[in-house]
């Protein structure tokens, strides 16, 4: 059965960079239908390429610098995103997920619907706690993420 994948990516050892994983841990405390799978993608990278074919829809939760205020969130589809610079594919070893999505598309394995729940980080230095800004907005972020997940579940039923 094709599923909806909720994938958190980030590094719990880099403060706000771990927001994707922390939000995933929060939302997966609630029960979802069997068609939904929550996945801790860790630092992600090329490994994500191999989990994407499992799903028809994915929501990727990640720390993204979109020059917003810390803790601000955006929910966008893949089509909505345009890279600021010219894309340098596979620019780092831990290739960022936009390049992974591109390769997945080239391989004709990309899920039909890809959404990104992006949170503006503040502090990405080494440490295991979120910045004050993100900590104070954690409940709101979780609530909004839940809404988006439920919308996706409903959309699948239509």
């Amino acid at each position, binding site marked *: 059965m094709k599923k909806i994948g909720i994938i958190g*990516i*980030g*590094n*719990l*050892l*880099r403060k706000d*960079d771990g927001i994707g994983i922390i939000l995933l841990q929060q939302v997966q405390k609630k029960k979802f239908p069997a068609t939904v799978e929550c996945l*801790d*993608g*860790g*630092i*992600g*990278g*090329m*490994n994500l*390429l*191999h989990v994407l074919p499992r799903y028809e829809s994915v929501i990727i939760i*990640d*720390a*993204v*610098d*979109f*020059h917003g205020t810390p803790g601000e969130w*955006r929910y*966008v589809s893949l089509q*909505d*995103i*345009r*890279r*600021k*610079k010219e894309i*340098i*594919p*596979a*620019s*780092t*070893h*831990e*290739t*960022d*997920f*936009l*390049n992974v999505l*591109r*390769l997945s598309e*080239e*391989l004709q394995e990309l899920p039909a619907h890809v959404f990104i729940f992006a949170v503006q*980080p503040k502090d*990405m*230095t*080494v440490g*295991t706690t979120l910045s004050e800004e993100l900590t104070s907005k954690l409940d709101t972020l979780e609530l909004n993420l839940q809404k988006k997940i439920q919308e996706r579940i409903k959309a699948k039923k239509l």
Partner: protein
Amino acid sequence: MSKDFSIHVEHVTRVEGHGNITLNVKNGSIEKLEWSVVEAPRFFEAMLRGQQFNELRPITSRICGICSIGHSLASLKATEDALGVKLSEQTELFRRLAIHAENMQSHILHIGYLVAPDLLGVGSVFPLIGSKHTDTVLKIVKLHRLANEMSDLICGRTIHPIRLVVGGFSMFPTEKQLVHLQKRLEEARSLTQELATVIHSVADKLPAFERETEYIALSTPKEYAFYDGDLTSTDTGTLKDYKKYQEITNEYLVPQSTAKYAKHHRDSYMVGALARFNLNSKQLHPAAQDVAKLFGLKAINYNPFMNTIAQLVEFMHNIEDSLQLIDTVLNQGIKDEKPVKPKVQAGRGVGLVEVPRGLLIHDYTLNSKGYCTKANCIIPTNQNHANIQKDMEKLVPEIINRPEKEIELTLEMLVRAYDPCISCSTHYLDVTFV
């Protein structure tokens, strides 16, 4: 020929993390040549202090998205060494399978997605899709997928494994799953041979450069060492007491970088696939030896660009050795073993493993309640920085009369050959929403 030029490569692409190359040439002579690492220094050791022994593995597995199995195993070995845990034969077999899976995962990523574009004359793997090389990319993806699924099967999860615990495994795969894996590994053997043929056809793009240096890796008469072995140098032989590893890995600071550097018997040394090959090539499986022969790779090889080829050789060895290990496991039958419960005690333990980029060491001191009071992690890439710098110092005068673009690309290729993992701990994105 005397000329003036300068090259500054900020954030060398297709490597993990941020490293810069600076080269200034005046009147044909080098004024400045520097490999610098600009990542924020790591403080993982500080995070480990105050944690209980069974928390150390989950924390360290998040240091790196690629070497999370390697960090897990180094961490477990250090913890178990401190607590005097004796492991079952089954655990030792499965841990070897885990390390093969990770090595395959990382090597194919490096060979296929990061180095192949250099050899095929493109900027990245993406333009290769839809070109005459599509088939090669599909082979690479297939092999990478197999390695990931093997990690999943053995460790419970590809990224940041969960089944690897102090004293053993929290769960083992079933015999049926292993039989299936065996079949896929057999298929991978021929795919790897085909990939080796493709890479061989463009291997003349690898610069013919040599610099004698010291190579350090684990080594043991029993096997081609990954999981276990004695700390060994091509210059000075074996270090008897592994707990005195600092006699080899002398770390020091340099002004241009935030990462630590290391040296032993010479100004620099190299760790990684080429170092392992140079020390242990005789223990490779015959199919892996055949890959080495195809490229004319013989120990001791002093060309750092051949590190990628040594990775390909190791990839074949990982497949062959995994097939053999699975055979052993299936013949013995999988026992429903629970992890060995450690007796909590004070002590110091050191865990050494060979991870894709080379020697990795975790060193923990635990108090009588099993809490960590001191930790030290020696990361492979830090051991290679000085060697990269020394290679550049010999390489640049040899190619100084070539076009600037070619010099720049050759220097970048040199850095990439080491497969450095400068900062495995962030994946920060910078995008604009429209």
